């Protein structure tokens, strides 16, 4: 990375670039988050927020059985999604990175980017039509004399929703990671007589470790905070943390309690992010 010329004092040039994003993000990203923490100590009386400093909201939420249930449920779903999406994405990313021709790869990337530009909300609505009791899948099953299978309002449907959200992104990130793998290593492995399937585990995955872990982490982050899929596909059964947030706000303007849940979520996400980053960059142990 390049350096500027040795700068004189009171040089305004770097400041002209550093300050705008710094000030903007500090004002409209950090300040609201700080507010969120502060607000978790406020009170609500007759649907009205009052500034205060009480710990009652924290006590109430942390003593509520439904909060723990929702936390465990959300964490589990996000973890399952991260694993499933990583496993599902890998063969596709592998094929695109090493086996497919440039034309196929380009076309595939276009298709992978397309979903980002259709409203996620509307895609979830479409999935309702697909997964419903008399929906597309069950109609197809009916033709061969099977079903119907109840899919809507189950955790399965929620994860399917998460997958539509995360699968394209995870394939892209994995593809990016795999394209950094040195092909000579794979040739070497092949020359040494390692069968291709084994080479995937011995060469490809270890050398693309960082990217693969980060891809899975994205799968976790996005699904952990998603509101739409658990609501419209999972039928809020049981509610996730995001639904809990919306419910607290809707059912009594209880912003302070919603903030407690939100702060807990942010802390969890940061912890997961740090853990996964350190895992990704950890030196491999002695062999």
């Amino acid at each position, binding site marked *: 990375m390049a350096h500027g010329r040795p700068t004189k004092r009171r040089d305004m040039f770097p400041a002209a670039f550093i300050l705008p994003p710094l000030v903007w993000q500090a004002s409209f990203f950090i300040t609201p988050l700080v507010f969120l923490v502060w607000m978790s100590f406020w009170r609500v009386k*007759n*649907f*009205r*927020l009052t500034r205060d400093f009480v710990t009652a909201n924290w006590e109430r939420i942390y003593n*509520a*059985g*439904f909060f723990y*249930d*929702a936390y465990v*449920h959300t964490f589990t779903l996000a973890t399952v999604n991260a694993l499933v999406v990583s496993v599902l994405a890998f063969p596709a990313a592998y094929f695109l*990175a090493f086996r497919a021709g440039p034309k196929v*790869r*380009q076309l595939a*990337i*276009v298709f*992978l*980017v397309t979903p980002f530009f259709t409203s996620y909300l509307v895609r979830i609505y479409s999935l*309702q039509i697909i997964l*419903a*009791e*008399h*929906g597309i899948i069950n109609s197809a099953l009916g033709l061969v004399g099977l079903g119907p299978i*109840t899919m*809507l*309002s189950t955790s399965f449907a929620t994860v399917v929703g998460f997958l539509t959200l995360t699968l394209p992104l995870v394939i*892209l990130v994995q*593809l*990016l990671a795999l*394209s*950094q*793998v*040195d*092909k000579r290593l794979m040739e070497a492995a092949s020359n040494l007589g390692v069968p291709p399937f084994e080479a995937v585990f011995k060469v490809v995955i270890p050398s693309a470790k960082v990217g693969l872990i980060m891809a899975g982490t994205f799968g976790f982050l996005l699904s952990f905070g998603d509101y739409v899929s658990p*609501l*419209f596909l*999972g*039928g*809020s*059964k*049981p*509610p996730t943390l995001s639904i*809990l947030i919306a*419910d607290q*706000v*809707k*059912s*009594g*303007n209880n912003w302070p309690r919603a903030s407690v849940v939100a702060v807990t979520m942010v802390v969890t996400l940061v912890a997961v992010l740090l853990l996964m980053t350190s895992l990704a960059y950890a030196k491999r142990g002695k062999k």
Partner: protein
Amino acid sequence: MTKVDPFAFWSRGIGRRQFLAGSTALGAMAATGLGPRRAHAEETLNILTWPGHADPAVVGPFEEKYGVDVVAKEYVGGENMLALVNQSPPGTYDVVLSDAEYVVMLRDGGFIEEMDPADYPFDSLFPEFKKFPGHWLDDKLYSMIIRFGYLGLAYRTDALTKEEVESYAIMWDEKVKGGVGFFDWYLPSMGCLSLYNGNEKPFDIDDAAFDKLKETLFSLAPQSSGFYSMADTFSSLTSGAAKCIPGIGDWITLLLAKDGVPVDATVPKEGGIQWTESMSIMAGSTKKDLAKAFIQYMTSAEGQMRSAMMPAYNASIPSKPGWEMLNAEHPDEAVRLRMTFDDRNVLDEYAEGKIHIRRTPVQQDIETWNDAWTEFKSL
């Protein structure tokens, strides 16, 4: 080494012609989006309502006559409405459509104004609605009734028979395991269960009865198919994911039945609950005359008739001229909505005494009931 740039496809060929075509398409869309209906409607009337009340099919003639746009912010559930009212700066909304039991909270918060009964067609109302509790507080009028309906048990007729749904007890039946849906609002759902528990006044119960109610509610958890907002309530009954849903009624099933979905709603023998929707003028509004004119329109025969047939969800109307107009202009709809004068109609059920007026909890906080509901959802 292959270098993959995920954004590389952008730099791949797309010709000037496609570029122009794309821009033209976007321009055309922007033009249609901003174009035609902008012509009139300099002014807007902002209303806070349950979904669907600003549908052109309902408010069209009013918009036409006054040259205004009726803009709605939609909510589901009274607490959601109060939350929105509290969050918004004064003057955001001109009219609020509320359920009767929340009018008192709107008044206590200083959000709505007293209304002059002389401004509204009280003579046209059926006697039951002239002095409806909740709309009149300390003998002053705060809200003008627009529509009402009953809540009991809605069910799919291909899953349950009319005899089976004569009691709420059917919800615990093996037949509907995993098929009992819930409208995601504690008040009507828990109200019906309170009736099932035999509480004379379903919302005015002591703590022992409330604990019993919680127990009854929680015992339904294994039967549950999910928790639905308004649209999901429609689609879960349509798709068959839900075979019955307590705490809803005609307002959901009438429309579905019209579309050929095998559903019906009933008031079980333990009783049902009445809901009402009424309109108030917001204290912070700067367009109070327009707001008044709007409520006058909604209580006129035409406004009432259109409101009864509102595309989002149908309801019964309390205005006699409204019934007359409906019977004259849309006789089929009048029959479907059971608002004919000759046959058994919606007012008869009211007279039978099975219907209890919905209220907010009396002996417990709203929060206590809400927390029980949240807990139930996570079981």
